[in-house]
């Protein structure tokens, strides 16, 4: 499986109207999601800073979830260090732009690169030691906890538990929540397009093969180790970028912003709920839990208990996630209409 994404693209290269049709089909779900996200604030919550704040948070979790989905959903590596990777991005951005007085964009870029390197290293270790899902999960969990302790330990640099105020943060973004909202809509759409491009290239083909059956994929000539590291690097970069920008839009970060209990648990639930390895699963999951967050605002102390009950209920009844369930339903309806003709999911059709 050598060569660049372009040369290895499946089938003859489509031209003219076919290319346009293919592009439309590939990007349509993203465009629809983006359109809905863009019109939400004026139609619904734009005048309530509180709800807008929750929406920003949901978007940020959606972005984390896209990265996590690339790592876990596509290549079966249970990275329980989403919070820590985002923290690598966030603290690097904060410290580089404040203390080393780099421009913000450079800070965010370096934060993204650091997260990508850390994620790639973790995947490299996991691949070298051929750790299975649980062991990868534990090693990355250990890394998360170590990272939190490291941040708390470096009081002079990070402000420990008290948190860290970004002097260079754009106050216009921090004050105007709608601005932050649109920033993360853009980020989410960009990440989704990257995810989609990977899905449709030879990389996505390799991902599907190794997810279905690792041994068979290896025998068929897929370099499982390489694609795992590849997914981890790109996914971690996505998470680091989001973490850095989130620090910048909040103007204040603390270990809790990137804590394991606060980030990883939520992201895992979002991706599992939406449907692992699917394009829009993370967005749907993040939206659902955003709504849940809003709905549970008034339940005070019992909030966590309701949240847990909801988690149990969805995983009892929707085991494979919303998107696969919806696709399955759609397929069944379609095959009813067209007789016994089999209908594949969207990625398969786009490839043909």
């Amino acid at each position, binding site marked *: 499986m050598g060569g660049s994404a372009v040369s290895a693209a499946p089938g003859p290269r489509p031209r003219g109207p076919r290319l346009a049709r293919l592009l439309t089909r590939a990007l349509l779900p993203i465009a629809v999601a983006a359109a809905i996200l863009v019109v939400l604030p004026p139609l619904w919550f734009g005048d309530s800073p509180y709800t807008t704040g929750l929406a920003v948070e949901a978007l940020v979790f959606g972005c984390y979830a896209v990265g996590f989905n690339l790592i876990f959903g596509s290549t079966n590596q249970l990275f329980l260090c989403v919070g820590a990777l985002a923290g690598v991005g966030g603290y690097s951005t904060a410290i580089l732009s404040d203390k080393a007085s780099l421009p913000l964009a450079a800070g965010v870029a370096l934060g993204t690169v650091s997260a990508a390197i850390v994620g790639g290293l973790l995947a490299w*270790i996991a691949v070298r030691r051929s*750790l299975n899902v649980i062991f990868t999960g534990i*090693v990355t969990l*250990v890394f998360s906890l*170590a990272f939190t302790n490291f941040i708390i*330990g470096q009081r002079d640099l990070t402000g420990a538990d008290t948190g860290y105020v970004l002097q260079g943060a754009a106050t216009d973004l921090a004050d105007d929540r709608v601005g932050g909202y649109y920033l993360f809509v853009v980020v989410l759409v960009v990440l989704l397009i990257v995810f989609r491009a990977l899905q449709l290239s030879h990389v996505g083909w390799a991902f599907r093969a190794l997810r279905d059956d690792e041994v068979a994929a290896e025998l068929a000539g897929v370099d499982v180790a390489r694609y795992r590291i590849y997914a981890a690097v790109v996914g971690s970069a996505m998470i680091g970028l989001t973490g850095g920008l989130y620090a910048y839009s909040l103007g204040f970060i603390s270990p809790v912003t990137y804590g394991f209990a606060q980030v990883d648990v939520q992201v895992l639930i979002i991706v599992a709920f939406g449907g692992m390895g699917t394009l829009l699963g993370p967005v749907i999951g993040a939206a659902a839990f955003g709504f849940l967050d809003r709905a549970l605002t008034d339940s005070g102390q019992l909030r*966590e208990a309701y949240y*847990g009950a909801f988690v*149990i209920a969805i995983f009892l009844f929707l085991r494979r996630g919303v998107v696969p369930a919806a696709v399955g339903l759609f397929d069944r309806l379609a095959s009813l209409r067209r007789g016994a003709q089999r209908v594949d999911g969207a990625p398969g059709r786009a490839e043909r």
Partner: protein
Amino acid sequence: MKAVILDGIVLGLGFGLLGVGLTLVYGLGGVLNLAYGEIAVFGAIVVSQVMDRGAPTLVAAGVGMLAAAALSVLLDLTLMRPVYRQTGEERTLLGLLLTLGVAFVIVGLLNWKYPTGALYIFVGGDPISIAGVPMAAGSVWASVITLGVAGVLLVFFGLTTFGRGVRSVIQDETGARLVGISPSLVRTLIFALSGGLAGLVAVTRSMSAPLTVTAGFDLTTFALIVAVVGGLGSVAGAFLAGVLLGIVDNVSAHYIGEYITAIVLLAAAAITILVRPRGLLGR
């Protein structure tokens, strides 16, 4: 130095007991019970409630352990059933997510009902001298209890027929069924044992420092790390890992400093997993 290591062993025995409950359930049911720490906290709150009603400490501790065991069995008989019907990684993931949900429910309900709930069992008496090192009576008693239970568990799993039956199910479910052992019965009993152990850990921990409603998360992560480092499914491994990590923790806490300690401890755990992915005593 002697005192530091001794303290580490005391701490480690507690870690070990925590790991055992988790490791057994994983070995038998293929479920990493993320609600484990919350079950321990539930037991602790029951103990403190019973003590508030004027019951003697021993009775209260017994009631708390039974309550934790009952909660654990309830989990096995209800929510874990659909998990057992899955295989491989689907089972692992569904088990993780469902027990995570249960953890949220338990901690949410406890926070709501007893927001300031905590268990502290005060053990009076002068410090007891062990190998020339004076140690607080509470932690000495806690380690005596832990050591006793550890001994009983090791003898039980090594020598008794039922204990061997349990290990046979861990090794080969079909084979166990062929020789007349019911895996689901064994599983339920082990869930009960695991819950009881969680309750016991809550009690022994509260003998040296108060155990609050929010302690569940830390308990779960420690149990998880100890169980994996020791080798999932291995009782002796969990104790060995617990004691080793306890010593690493205490020695580095004493000579290096608080936050670096946690990192040293976690790095030790990570290196063990990487060098021996099956765990210290795993198969």
